């Protein structure tokens, strides 16, 4: 198998044994990018020269016998929402079309210190608002399993790049499902950690009470290694939590005997794709056979999650995106006076979905509507969090489908925002409750598109999720399948 097709932990072993060099791996990844990128559009910015330089430095460290960090010399892609010092960062928006950050996000700094090789910045829905990566100001990313389909979103470029072996692993962000839903669409592993587990410093803000950074990888072991590398308290992010970071990979022993797994009945709904329902139910039987106890549970407020989310996330976004005024950075339109400068810069700089959400959020926060919309949504958010707290008295982890369908067709939902929003119906509650959640592949539909299973855990209990996911992965072969590129 070519080097680009291998996992992070396989390559780490090879690097440690000095069987390959980081430069060779990096060259292999960039060859793969050259041969597939025209078809897929995973990246907004590539940095081949800098990557080769970083790979050389990693090889120097390896030569000195410094092989402890699993990410040393590994090519990693970053969603274009992470600030990268000296490297164009657009958030897939025209308004940041020429923005070059003066500093690195904490997660980027941690990856660099661990010796990771940055391949480039991946495509996304503008400001992470979307579920298909069609809202990018630059290009729509294609699904490696079928280029007529979306890769999911908003971290669709990162998901497609991992699935197509255009990087070894990637970082995404998840506000309502933006790591897990594209991971599901592209047949990879993606995890949204507990809110506060990973620093958000230097991550362009969408909805600050929901945003979280997480790994997107080829298998569960890689996910555990990436999470350990980026997790932990950061004094630059006052919402990050000062809790010890466990050795996540140490939990991957394949033993889930006695683990109690809850299956919420509200996540198997009328209108979902029958093959998705079947695929997840088959997966649950595999989990049961591996020794876990499975029982039905109820999360009664599930049906309200999308409504709550589209008030809270848009309200926070309308406030966060007020900073794009064309004064200190970003796009400034030519205009007659100050107000017109604001108006025209924002009109020309933002895409349609971003404007729609700013409008919805501004409306929900405006005088006369605040109580009816924003306050009401916050109260129902409390009920959704309470549902999970009740459920976790009876179980250690919850298993659901990640999305109601497999990857949909490009253009299928762009004219109907509400239909697009509903593709996040199974992932949104997890953000509202601040819980960790992971998606991993659990089968394929009749068109050969991957199906994703979601595992949800208790606050700061990513270890149990990873343990369960690994046991399932060991019992199946889905993660070894590659798209026909």
């Amino acid at each position, binding site marked *: 198998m070519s080097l680009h097709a291998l996992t992070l932990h396989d390559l780490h072993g090879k690097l440690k044994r000095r069987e390959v060099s980081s430069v060779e791996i990096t060259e292999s990844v960039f060859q793969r990018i050259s041969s597939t990128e025209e078809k897929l559009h995973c990246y907004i910015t590539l940095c081949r020269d800098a990557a080769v330089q970083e790979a050389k430095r990693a090889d120097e460290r390896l030569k000195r016998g410094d092989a402890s960090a699993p990410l040393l010399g590994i090519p990693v892609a970053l969603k274009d929402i992470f600030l990268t010092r000296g490297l164009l960062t657009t958030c897939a928006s025209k308004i940041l079309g020429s923005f070059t950050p003066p500093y690195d996000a904490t997660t980027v700094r941690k990856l660099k210190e661990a010796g990771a090789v940055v391949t480039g910045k991946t495509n996304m829905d503008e400001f992470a608002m979307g579920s298909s990566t069609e809202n990018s100001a630059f290009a729509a990313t294609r699904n490696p399993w079928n280029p007529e389909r979306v890769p999911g979103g908003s971290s669709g470029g990162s998901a497609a790049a991992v699935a197509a072996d255009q990087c070894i692993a990637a970082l995404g962000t998840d506000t309502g499902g933006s790591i897990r839903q594209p991971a599901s669409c592209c047949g990879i592993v993606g995890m949204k950690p507990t809110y506060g587990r990973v620093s958000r410093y230097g991550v362009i803000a969408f909805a600050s009470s929901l945003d979280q950074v997480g790994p997107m990888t080829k298998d569960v072991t890689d996910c555990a290694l990436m999470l350990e590398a980026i997790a932990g308290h950061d004094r630059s992010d*006052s919402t990050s939590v000062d809790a010890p970071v466990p050795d996540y990979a140490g939990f991957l022993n394949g033993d889930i005997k006695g683990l109690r797994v809850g299956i919420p009945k509200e996540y198997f709904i009328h209108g979902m794709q029958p093959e998705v329902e079947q695929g997840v139910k088959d997966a649950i039987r595999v989990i049961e056979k591996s020794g876990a106890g499975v029982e039905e549970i109820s999360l009664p407020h599930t049906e309200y999650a999308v409504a709550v989310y589209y008030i809270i996330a848009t309200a926070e976004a309308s406030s966060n995106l007020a900073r794009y005024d064309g004064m200190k950075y970003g796009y400034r339109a030519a205009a007659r006076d100050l107000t017109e400068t604001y*108006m025209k810069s924002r*009109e020309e700089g933002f895409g349609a979905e971003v404007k729609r959400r700013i409008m*919805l959020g501004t409306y929900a926060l405006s005088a006369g509507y605040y109580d009816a919309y924003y306050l009401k949504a916050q109260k129902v958010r409390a009920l959704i969090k309470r549902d999970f707290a009740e459920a976790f008295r009876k179980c250690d982890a919850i298993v659901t489908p990640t999305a109601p369908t497999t990857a949909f067709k490009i253009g299928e939902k762009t004219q109907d925002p509400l239909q697009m929003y509903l593709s996040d119906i199974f992932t949104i509650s997890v953000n509202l409750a601040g819980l960790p959640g992971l998606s991993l592949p659990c089968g394929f539909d009749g068109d050969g598109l991957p199906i994703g299973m979601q595992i949800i855990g208790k606050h700061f209990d990513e270890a149990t999720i990873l343990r369960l996911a690994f046991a399932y992965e060991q019992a199946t072969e889905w993660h070894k399948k590659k798209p026909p590129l």
Partner: protein
Amino acid sequence: MKITREEVQRVAALARLQFSPEEEEILTGQLDKILQYVEKLDRLDTADVEPLAHAVDIVNAFRDDRVANQPSPDSLLANAPAREKDFFKVPKIIE
């Protein structure tokens, strides 16, 4: 109708956005559909529920107010749409 054309215009002004008449019409319809969907929250009695702003219990994360990094003016001004010496150049605010 949950939202009118006039309200869309008012909210656009608050958000410092502007739309063409055609965009405004489409947007009014889309926002109306979304707000009708959101109306389902009214079915729940939340009179005794405390609103939740934040999912994880953190209260006031204090730290010392010390300068930790001092980027050069050049690095901070590098992205300015317009610059004069070490200042951001902006449109006139007071006539």
